[in-house]
């Protein structure tokens, strides 16, 4: 799934404004799934490395 910069900007604005996943009108089960999924340090760094390498190509 490719996430656009616009999505990231909105997400960042929501974080700045203190709006969390719980404040959205998504179904409760979806919210729970999002909140329960926790990414480890290794997963975050691996995703970042993939993204950097993709941009270099």
């Amino acid at each position, binding site marked *: 799934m490719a*996430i656009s910069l616009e999505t990231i900007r*909105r*997400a960042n604005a*929501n974080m700045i404004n203190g709006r*969390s996943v719980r404040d959205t009108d998504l179904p409760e089960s*979806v919210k729970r799934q*999002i909140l329960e999924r926790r*990414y480890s340090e290794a997963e*975050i760094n691996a995703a*970042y490395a993939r993204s950097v390498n993709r941009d270099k190509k």
Partner: protein
Amino acid sequence: MSNHDTFGKLVKDDNDFVGIVAYTIYKKEKNNWKDTYEATHGVKPTYDQIQQYFNVDTTTPQKIASYRKLAEDRLNIFIDATTTEELIQYKNSIRDDAIVTAVNSPWWKELLINVGAGIVGAALVSGFSIFYWLGQVKEDTEFQKKFNDKVAEELGIIKQSKTE
């Protein structure tokens, strides 16, 4: 040049995004400490004071691990926010597609709807006109007399034609 090498301790390599965020958290904490120091003492802390009172605590393995943990937490919040935003946009795009599909119905469907609406409209206007006319006729005695005469005349003709 600082000798505590906090950046080197927090950021393992170029792909260590968690470490980069951890370093940002460290810098923010350092700036807050300097601001508090200045507010309390009226002067900015010197490099040596920063080394002695701030960096002595912040560069221990425990503190480095703590910064990395904070960064991981913060990044998970960001991932949650991004995922949520992406899902909201996806949900909105599905809703918009459904609206567009509903609006752009096929020509034959549009034709049927318009013909149907035309028939219903004509029936309503005709019904209204008939009732209006009947209402007018009911109160017009002159017309009623003429109408009765006409009917009688017609019936007379019919009777006459039957007897013949």
